[in-house]
């Protein structure tokens, strides 16, 4: 019996090792590649370490792109989460005349690709002066995040018993108060998970950013990265360094939140 357990453990260990390799190897490649020159990247046996790629990308404006991305994405995530919590709450707690239609309309935002939005939105933005502006991008990203945020939050809210807010309201709370003081603390993991999704979506979006942000001072990280896939050639060293800089903040954001991410994800799909 102990031998079987040992072999079982051995198999698990091997599987775990293989899984870790699969998950982490590309990240290792990014970091090690970011410190090599274009030459050594392609040569077989040479390996010179250099920080030149990082210097090169920050020279090319990556610092600006980083701060732009942070500002736009944090603001959009906050806005989308707040607005989605509000909407999901009434979708969950109230039955009103247009509920079904409106909810379907909101969720329907997930059904089509965003590329089709680029041209009409560009015309709208250009006419209202929202191109090359933080507010334009924030509004845009908020809009894109709302459909799935409302859907996820609704699912999560369904698992929070209505008795909780009803009890709070009997005690004299306004509905808004009940949401803020009672329901929100309980659904916090769901909110965190949803906000994380929204953040990642905004952080990596590049089609809309490409059309609306043309001034170098306004560009975001994905645009900066994309620039290195040039017409004549690809600067792989810079691409690796840029990839590292683009991934690191998202990873650093996830680490402290990871416990909440797991419990927040299953939402209403686990408990009916």
């Amino acid at each position, binding site marked *: 019996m102990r031998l079987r357990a040992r072999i079982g453990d051995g198999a698990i260990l091997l599987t775990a090792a293989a899984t870790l390799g699969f998950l*982490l190897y590309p990240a290792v490649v990014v970091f090690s590649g970011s410190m090599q020159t274009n030459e050594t990247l392609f040569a077989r046996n040479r390996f010179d370490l250099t920080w030149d790629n990082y210097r090169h990308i920050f020279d090319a404006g990556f610092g600006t792109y980083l701060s732009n991305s942070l500002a736009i994405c944090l603001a959009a995530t906050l806005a989308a989460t707040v607005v989605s919590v509000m909407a999901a709450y009434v979708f969950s707690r109230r039955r009103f005349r247009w509920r079904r239609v409106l909810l379907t309309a909101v969720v329907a935002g997930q059904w089509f*690709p965003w590329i*089709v939005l680029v041209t009409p939105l560009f015309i709208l933005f250009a006419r209202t002066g929202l191109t090359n502006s933080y507010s334009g991008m924030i509004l845009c990203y908020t809009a894109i995040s*709302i459909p799935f945020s409302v859907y996820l939050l609704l699912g999560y809210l369904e698992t929070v018993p209505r008795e909780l807010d009803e009890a709070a309201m009997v005690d004299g709370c306004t509905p808004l108060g009940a949401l803020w003081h009672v329901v929100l603390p309980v659904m916090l993991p769901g909110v965190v998970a949803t906000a994380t999704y929204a953040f990642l979506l905004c952080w990596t979006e590049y089609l809309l950013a490409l059309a609306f942000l043309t001034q170098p001072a306004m560009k975001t990280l994905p645009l900066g*990265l994309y620039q290195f896939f040039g017409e004549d050639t690809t600067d792989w060293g810079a691409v690796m360094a840029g*990839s590292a800089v683009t991934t690191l903040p998202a990873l650093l954001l996830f680490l402290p939140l990871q416990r909440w991410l797991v419990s927040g994800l299953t939402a209403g799909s686990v408990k009916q």
Partner: protein
Amino acid sequence: MMAPARRRTARADQVFVTLMLAPSLLILAAFYLYPMASNVWFSLTDLSLMKLRQGGAYIGLANYADALGGADFWRVVWNTAFWLTAVSVVVRLVLGMALALLLNSAALLRLRLRTLMRLALLVPWATPPIVAVAVWRWLLHPQAGGINRALLWLGLTRHPIAFLADTATVWPAIVLIMVWNTVPVATLTLLAALQSVPRELSEAAALDGAGSVRIFRHVTLPHIMPTIMILAMLMTFWTFNNFVYVWLATGAGPGRYTDVLATEVYLRGFVDFNLGSSAAIGVIMAVAMGTFGLLYVRVLGRRVAS
């Protein structure tokens, strides 16, 4: 005495609902509804990016007829529905389930690897798709990529394989990239579902003499099936409409081999400058996903809007 208070509450409540819904509805109306309506209008015209200012002339359903009647169209639909969506969703569900089971296993806890594995899962998830494609294009590169170097060194192949250019390997390569980038979502969702299975049930089954496979099939799986179905639906929505992975990995090539609906939208609109045709494909995609969503939910017996 009570009646007037209730009436006031009812109206106040209506105001409350309206105020809570207004921000999201307004934002969606401006940034989603209006462009989508524009898009539907574009699809009924011959609008070209070259004549954006003049606008396009109404041509009815000609764009749709042209698209649906095209010889290539159904192959593109097949690429999108089967290779891009179905295969990748199934792979992610199966792999995600396996990883979730691994993470949930007692053995892993014993070996104290659970936290490390959970953290490792975050790395692919936090990687933006553009980075994921860039890294995997590098790994799959014929001359310099790690995978080819490993294959050559192990003697498994005599010449480097151009994964992203060889028709036999290009779709698996694209699916691999997508799976790497998004399997953590599936894994963590399924893990949470697994952890919500009441232990008494599986313990009781074990006492009755059931093996772990039996327990999984008859106790665990039914319990987490709703999660799996919802996850499958969400992944389908996200994948069917996806543009970035295919475009950055192969540019819909070689030839037109990996052309999917989203890349068609791009090619027609931004390379051929035919916005009308591009918009029509977008509408077709929305209708397809909408139909899928509504039917799926009805078949499941669960209502999205219940």
